[in-house]
């Protein structure tokens, strides 16, 4: 089933925040932000801005009725700075005016006196100075010292991976409308209905039941709208103070300059293998570049931490991880949530080890793949492991050995163009690592005309979650999909919703929807039983909107049934709840079962590098990915293709640049995301067949993030070429831009 919004999308009729018809009296807001990376505010002078054309109010921290705090995990992030400044782009004032242009003009008239302090931009330096968010995490399993003593081959070194701008097409924005009795409605482009509603209530000093947060759809999110609530809360605050509707929409370049990104990491690694290439020991230190506030960084770090063994069985590990406080905008969630970085380091270490051992990296990977019964470093034993199945399926499809030989042959016959190849296995834990968040609820209403409305806490951002939920509802009730509509995500209908992230949107909300529909179906079957004097409920079925008894079709439609149910005073509305069972994690012991299940995949990437110029082309990507029993093959394929290309952007061309004072230099004109010419000529995606997953709704598997890992293949395929040219320097950092490739070869 395809995305239900597409008919509107192709006509330009879908409504995003800035397309909502302007309410009467609408004002526009803009943010005045810090021009300094680290300092202390001495004075804020808003007098000139207040007198500027069209200005209704200039809001500073003094005007906030409630808490001046929007920290997602730790209370270290004021909505409006009043004392310490931690990054360029930190909000100091909100200017509200008749037009966005006048609001921005007035921002330029604000004078702020900041005492400059010494900023820190390097994560390792921050760690040395004791500047970290939350606590250092250490996980030890087995006996690392003994294992290294037994290792025949040991590789160690340092490597780094870079950040990534989300570049969701719809920038951060919200529209806030004050209502009667101190209530407020906020329409927002955000992924966390529950958490953002809570922040609004706290800042405005009103109870949560007076805040209605509504989300129709997002023009992309990718995690960037999950934790940082600045823009949504700022609009709500302005609307509350002025008692007028207020819209806040930030420009692309403001978004790039002031919002969080994918975390850059620096890593120290040491890996030990036995004489056959089996991994015996792995020791890694993760330095996460977190930014000026904790935001959601400790949670992202936690996921990197739990994924540093990648798709491999490693009996002895020591993992240390720190979230380093640096003076850039707080980095946040981005598709993969730390897993791409965790996987990158084990893949890099193993690549390095293969060079020392002199064994082909692809063979080395295969012999270390996870199997049923293996333990992950945090003590979870694997079941229904599809790592080897995905690998073998890919091998059957592309013949890995032949592909390696073909590349060797090509390289023999070509002087200036060289090809490289990489195989990347994927193992991605599904569930929020913070167990509390693994809950969801759904509200299903059947109206007397037979139409059905479903509300959940899931946020539609293009990933097709609403379509999957719709499909679960229609299939469970036994009615045509046209009868079902998925309503907006609204905190008045669905309270305390977890963010739509960690790829769990369909898993959690789909299951809650299924439960609600099953309950409604039982109520309806009881009514049918009463009417037909046939009491074996298991043999009563509804299919395509018609009632069946023991497989025999009755002259009784869904619409007639619903009308009868209403007349018989049956409750046609059901709220249901789902919490992922049997997951737990002990943060002190660093042991537990944090994930309900794992998503697997394997891909082969081939690149061609022009070794005179450093430019390259992705020749082909072949992906096999395990989606369980897909709720929608079209959607899942689209998610895989999109994730792979977005990830190759991260591993190759997307590079963020900062000035020495911490100012973001990248902008819409200089930050390149993959365009259509970037797509390889051969790009094949295959869903693993006959995969079942008892741990998620209708045997499906989560899809949003896991395929992002395949994009690492581009980095390692280019690396394959580079290391054949020279090995006299350390592994280059990610991304491998053409400039970096050139410099690696010739510097």
């Amino acid at each position: 089933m395809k995305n239900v919004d597409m008919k509107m999308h192709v006509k330009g009729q879908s409504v995003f925040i800035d397309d909502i018809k302007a309410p009467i009296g609408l004002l526009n807001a803009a943010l005045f932000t810090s021009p300094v990376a680290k300092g202390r505010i001495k004075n804020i002078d808003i007098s000139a801005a207040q007198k500027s054309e069209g200005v209704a109010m200039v809001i500073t921290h003094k005007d906030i009725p409630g808490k001046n705090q929007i920290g997602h995990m730790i209370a270290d992030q004021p909505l409006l700075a009043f004392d310490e400044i931690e990054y360029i782009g930190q909000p100091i004032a909100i200017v509200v005016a008749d037009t966005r242009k006048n609001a921005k003009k007035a921002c330029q008239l604000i004078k702020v006196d900041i005492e400059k302090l010494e900023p820190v931009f390097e994560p390792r330096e921050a760690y040395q100075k004791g500047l970290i968010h939350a606590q250092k995490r250490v996980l030890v399993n087995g006996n690392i010292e003994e294992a290294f003593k037994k290792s025949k081959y040991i590789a160690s070194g340092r490597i780094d991976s870079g950040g990534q701008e989300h570049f969701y097409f719809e920038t951060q924005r919200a529209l806030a409308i004050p209502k009667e009795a101190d209530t407020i409605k906020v329409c927002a482009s955000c992924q966390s209905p529950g958490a953002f509603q809570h922040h609004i209530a706290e800042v405005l000093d009103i109870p949560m039941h007076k805040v209605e947060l509504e989300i129709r759809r997002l023009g992309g999110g990718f995690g960037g709208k999950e934790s940082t609530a600045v823009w949504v809360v700022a609009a709500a605050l302005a609307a509350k103070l002025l008692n007028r509707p207020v819209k806040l929409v930030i420009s692309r370049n403001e978004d790039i300059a002031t919002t969080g990104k994918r975390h850059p990491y620096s890593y120290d690694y040491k890996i030990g293998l036995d004489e056959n290439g089996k991994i015996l020991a792995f020791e890694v230190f993760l330095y996460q570049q977190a930014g000026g506030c904790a935001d959601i960084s400790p949670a992202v770090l936690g996921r990197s931490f739990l994924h540093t063994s990648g798709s491999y069985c490693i009996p002895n590990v020591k993992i240390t991880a720190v979230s380093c406080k640096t003076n850039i905008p707080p980095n946040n969630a981005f598709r993969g949530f730390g897993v791409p970085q965790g996987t990158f380091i084990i893949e890099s270490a193993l690549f390095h080890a293969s060079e020392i051992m002199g064994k082909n990296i692809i063979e080395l990977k295969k012999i270390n793949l996870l199997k049923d019964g293996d333990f992950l470093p945090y003590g979870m034993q694997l079941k229904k492991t599809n790592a080897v199945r995905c690998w073998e399926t890919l091998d059957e499809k592309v013949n890995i050995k032949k592909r390696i030989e073909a590349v060797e042959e090509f390289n023999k016959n070509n002087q200036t163009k060289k090809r490289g190849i990489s195989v990347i296995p994927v193992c991605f834990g599904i569930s929020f690592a913070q167990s509390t968040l693994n809950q969801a609820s759904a509200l299903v209403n059947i109206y007397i005309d037979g139409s059905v409305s479903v509300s959940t806490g899931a946020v539609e951002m293009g990933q097709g979650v609403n379509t999957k939920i719709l499909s679960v509802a229609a299939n469970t009730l036994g009615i045509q999909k046209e009868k079902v509509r998925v309503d907006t995500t609204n905190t008045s209908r669905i309270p305390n919703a977890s963010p739509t992230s960690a790829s769990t949107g369909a898993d959690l909300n789909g299951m809650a929807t299924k439960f609600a529909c099953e309950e409604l179906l039982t109520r309806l079957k009881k009514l049918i039983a009463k009417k037909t004097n046939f009491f074996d409920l298991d043999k009563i079925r509804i299919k395509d909107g018609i009632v069946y008894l023991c497989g025999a079709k009755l002259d009784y439609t869904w619409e007639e049934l619903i009308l009868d149910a209403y007349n018989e005073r049956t409750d046609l509305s059901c709220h249901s709840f789902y919490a992922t069972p049997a997951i737990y994690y002990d943060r002190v012991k660093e042991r537990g079962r944090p994930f309900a299940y794992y998503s697997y995949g394997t891909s082969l990437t081939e690149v061609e590098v022009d070794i005179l110029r450093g430019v390259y082309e992705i020749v082909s990507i072949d992906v096999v990915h395990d989606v369980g029993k897909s709720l929608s093959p079209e959607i899942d394929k689209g998610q895989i293709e999109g994730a792979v290309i977005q990830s190759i952007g991260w591993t190759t061309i997307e590079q963020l640049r900062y000035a020495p004072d911490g100012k973001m230099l990248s902008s819409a004109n200089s930050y390149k995301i993959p365009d259509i010419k970037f797509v390889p000529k051969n790009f094949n995606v295959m869903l693993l067949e006959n995969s079942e997953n008892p741990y998620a709704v209708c045997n499906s598997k989560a899809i949003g993030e896991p395929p992002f890992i395949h994009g690492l293949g581009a980095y390692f395929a280019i690396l394959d070429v580079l290391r054949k040219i020279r090995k006299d320097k350390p592994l280059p950092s990610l991304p491998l831009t053409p400039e970096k490739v050139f410099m690696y070869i010739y510097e």
Partner: protein
Amino acid sequence: MKTITFTVNGQKYTREVEEHKTLLRFLREDISLTGTKEGCGAGECGACTVLLNSKPVNACLVLAVEIDGKEVITIEGIAQDGKLSPLQEAFERHHAIQCGFCTPGMIISAHSLLQRNPNPKREDIQEAIEGNFCRCTGYLQIIEAIEDAAEQLKPKKSKKR
């Protein structure tokens, strides 16, 4: 302020407009056609692509006063009498859309390509869509949709749609 006369999607308008207002803001704010989106406001992403006298342009880089005496087609003008064009149908059929924010500009560029070149090769499609970024899809389904639409539009079928 300057008075301009122009047509949008076949409808004739006369409007007063500030000289510095972009076509993008003019369409969205003054003509209430919000199908055209602002993705970057810097002429990079193509989300605001419209046809100006049949040529695709970034509406964020054109001033509203420049459309005086000219004809503009926006995404709202592609479906005829509420019926989707073969290209729009193909986008739906091939699932060439995720969040939908880049879609209007993407369809305008592809529509313009098919008008110029009813038989595009893959390279032609890449050339025509190069200025339209999509952050969600891997572009494959978009390419497939445009190829399929071109096939549908071939004269041998000559169905007037």
